[in-house]
């Protein structure tokens, strides 16, 4: 089974005071640390688990700059066989252009399964995977929490609301967007990443791909980003730990909970 996994490098934004850059269309990135998108971490693990069971190859792929190769090296260290980076140069990206570029590369590769994350942690769109499926003309499913391939189909579980899973059969090849919790991603050591440096990492320039001008034109544009409107928000409890604890206990009791 040959599996392609699309991965993205995203900034860590918890416990960070995000600043908007002068263009007003992005955050100031110079202060941020980057990691692999959480959902993609589960997707690459799932691909490697399937490969360990069924043999074949795993190819990790990203569209991004040289700095983004960090996530590909991580995938290689986890057990991917090959990695591909497409350099978009200064091209403006949205889920449409990203899916077009991914499709142009994947078309030329052997694939029984293409995995993406459900969503990227930065823009939270949840669109690239299923757009990609349509470009490739493949069967597709989103928010997948289980995959069991058997011959030219797979039994999959899609996670719906309220803890309900939908079990289906899907024809392969297919594109699936992977939900967190589907597995337990393995630990990657710095040593592991160093060792994986010998594995193949190809860089493709946009010009090498069969893409028209229209294919590279975004369909959505971020006009501006802004801080959430000041709503009423929480009443902040201040003071030392003991005062805070007292206040919390008072509120809990006041609301009719007996403790």
């Amino acid at each position: 089974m040959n599996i392609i996994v699309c991965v993205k490098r995203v900034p860590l934004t918890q416990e960070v005071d995000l600043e908007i850059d002068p263009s007003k269309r992005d955050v100031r990135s110079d202060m941020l640390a980057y990691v692999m998108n959480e959902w993609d971490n589960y997707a690459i693990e799932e691909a490697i688990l399937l490969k360990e069971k069924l043999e074949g190859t795993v190819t990790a792929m990203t569209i991004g700059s040289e700095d983004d190769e960090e996530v590909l090296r991580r995938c290689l260290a986890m057990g991917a066989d090959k990695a591909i980076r497409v350099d978009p140069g200064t091209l403006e990206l949205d889920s449409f252009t990203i899916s077009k570029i991914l499709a142009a590369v994947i078309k030329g590769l052997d694939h029984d399964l293409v995995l993406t994350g459900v969503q990227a942690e930065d823009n939270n769109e949840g669109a690239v995977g299923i757009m990609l499926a349509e470009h490739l003309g493949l069967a597709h499913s989103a928010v997948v929490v289980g995959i069991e391939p058997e011959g030219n189909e797979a039994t999959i579980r899609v996670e719906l609301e309220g803890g309900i899973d939908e079990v289906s059969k899907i024809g392969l090849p297919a594109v699936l967007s992977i939900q967190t919790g589907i597995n337990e991603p393995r630990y990657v050591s710095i040593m592991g990443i160093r060792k994986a440096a010998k594995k193949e990492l190809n860089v493709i320039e946009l010009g090498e791909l069969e893409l028209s001008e229209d294919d590279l034109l975004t369909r959505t544009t971020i006009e501006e980003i802004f801080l959430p409107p000041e709503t009423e928000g929480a009443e902040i409890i201040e003071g030392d730990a003991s005062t805070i604890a007292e206040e919390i206990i008072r509120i809990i009791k006041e609301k009719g909970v007996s403790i």
Partner: protein
Amino acid sequence: MGEIFVVVEHREEEIREITFQMLWKANELAQALSHSLTAVLLCDNGEAFVPEIGDRADRVILVEDESLKNFSAERYKEILKGLIEEYNPFLTLMGHTPWGMEFAPALSIKTGLPLATDCVDILIEDGNPKVIRQIYNGKLFSKVSFKASEGYLITQRPGAFPTDKVGDRQGELIKKEIPADIPEPRKQFVEFVDTAAGEMDISQAEFLVSVGRGVGEEENIKVVQDLVDTLGGVISCSRPVVDKNWLPKFHQVGTSGKTVKPKVYLALGISGAFQHVAGISGAGTVIAVNKDKKAPIFRVADYGVVDDLFKVVEALKKKLSA
């Protein structure tokens, strides 16, 4: 006069709440634009649904077929493409739900119409639609415009708008046949499985102490459990805690977990992603403890503590044992 489409989402003989929320927003947009509002219903038995949505739309386009009993992204995308070509709606609203996520992006490619997902608001500026989205898990908002097009596709965030009936509309029922040449879907429904049931039902708890990824590691769950044992509440959690197997699934609060309605919800180290807070809208009072003063949870909480959760937990234990 233009048109706004709302794609009805339903499951097991029931219309999903997101449908009413989309109809709510579509009503507002239709009024502002003097457009008509059309609910598009793909199902096996329309009679059951039409009365519920008929008075919220000017038209109900019903495609009724045995094969539409269960949701099928492939059938939805084929049928909707045909209807969009026939009616040319200015806007087509779909839910940003697992099912919406499975067909809306494919429909965008199939029709060539631009798509914006997970929108919390839809505006019209100079006749053009623009949407408001949340990025970085709600820490920032973005305003997004579309490439000029005949029509636009939007998926709406669940819970962004009310479910109430608004406007005064008399839905005319239009029945359509399922296209004869529609390909057999490559994905076939087998069954639904309930994974959230467990030893305990957190949705019945009066007082929940909820832990998020901020708890750091598995051992620390015990620290919080100790507090819960003294306080007398029930422990619940956000999704990453379940993903890491630190607590069983039946403790999870949120869209893919349980909807809860305690008198008090004490959130420890939870950032407040919409999929989480959607599960606590029925909570009486929310108290959030988070190190990050910009965490979105503080926008929905009644009380906030900007501090290390362990400091607060220890102080609470001390007070209670005193």
